[in-house]
């Protein structure tokens, strides 16, 4: 039996299609998870956008703290809560799919392939949540300050600061994807290490 040691990678397109189908099949849970990501990310994105607008309005002379540290802590806690939510959701997804994982392993999947599938699933949910949450938070902060503006000068400053803060949406998406990947790591690792015989014997 001759074999060359070369890693066979699950073609990324098909791995993504597989993961998307898996998410669609358990859509309700995926939506709940994504909503929790959206809320956490939107909160952070709104706080950061507001701080940029406040700095722009107070001008160079103001040394007032634009983003009080307690608010930042609240955002961090919100993100932790969403991380735990993702871990929970992915663990359920793994438990539900014991048999499927066992089957894929008997077909010759390596641990790496299973890891890949679950990380992609987590990453997709993170990306969707990040995009929606980032835009939502930024938009809410912008609208609130724009509505409060009394003069055209203030309103133009707010618009300028908000448009200048559009990069925050990008950061939110990156943060959200990283957070989701980190949270999916443990469940995905557990799935990849399952013994095929035990996984196949498992009845849901």
């Amino acid at each position: 039996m001759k074999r060359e040691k070369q890693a066979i990678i699950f073609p990324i397109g098909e791995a993504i299609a597989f993961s998307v189908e898996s998410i669609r099949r358990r859509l309700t849970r995926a939506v709940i998870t994504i909503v929790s990501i959206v809320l956490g990310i939107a909160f952070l994105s709104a706080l950061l956008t507001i701080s940029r607008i406040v700095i722009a309005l107070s001008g160079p002379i103001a040394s007032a703290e634009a983003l009080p540290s307690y608010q930042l802590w609240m955002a961090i806690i919100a993100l932790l809560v969403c991380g735990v939510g993702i871990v929970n959701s992915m663990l359920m997804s793994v438990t539900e799919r014991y048999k499927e994982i066992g089957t894929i392993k008997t077909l010759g999947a390596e641990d790496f392939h299973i890891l890949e599938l679950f990380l992609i699933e987590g990453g997709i949910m993170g990306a969707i949540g990040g995009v929606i949450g980032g835009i939502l938070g930024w938009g809410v902060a912008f609208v609130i300050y724009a509505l409060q503006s009394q003069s055209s000068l203030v309103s133009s400053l707010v618009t300028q600061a908000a448009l200048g803060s559009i990069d925050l949406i990008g950061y939110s998406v990156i943060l959200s994807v990283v957070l989701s990947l980190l949270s999916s790591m443990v469940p995905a690792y557990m799935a990849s290490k399952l013994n095929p015989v035990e996984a196949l014997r498992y009845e849901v």
Partner: protein
Amino acid sequence: MASVLRYEYTVETEDLAKNYVMGPITVKALDGVSVKIRRGEYLSIMGPSGSGKTTFFNMIGGLDRPTRGKVYIDEVDIAKLDAYELAWLRARKIGYIFQTFNLIPVLTALENVSLPMIFAGVGREERLERAKQLLERVGLGERLDHKPAELSGGQQQRVAIARALANNPVIVLADEPTGNLDLHTGLDIITLLKNLNSEKGVTIITATHDLKMIDVSDRIFWIRDGKLERIETRKEVSVRPVERE
């Protein structure tokens, strides 16, 4: 060039044993089974529930490690393989068929059949082409894009058979392949397995309760209490009245 080499015995076991420790009790699920299975044979492992059939089956499929003894597949001791090589073996040398079909629910029939080829590194075009041919061979050419939930039990088992054959394995292991099917559909599946066995020369090993399987088997291994009770050829079975379990 592993595929060109021909070994007389596809599977060989030596004093194979497996113990399960359940608290203070050690259960001897398998207790010293030594067999040789020839290339191209159609073999049935029969025995009552709890006799150790499935354990034996998992051992020769490289799914579980024995407590004692050895398993050789194409003269390679599978205990010596690392995780990567074991995955390689499962992908290319062995095809599995299960009682509960175990198709991936989110994938279509075509995708299910092409999945093992992904793990064997086959290119996309070839994968889909071969999967289509296999599905046509098992009589499902019209249902390529159906998901498992849209197929009957017999059809799902046909997809599973096509999937087991995807990488041209030398052995197909079928664990109670007719266990969840009605009499007629079960017979269809048995006939299909037998035809594939003759056509492709693939060794088929089934663990089963189904006495219909005897009619197509070259040899039957009777297992009881973890031990190989006797080995019979089809002729020997047919001259002796078969006891019902």
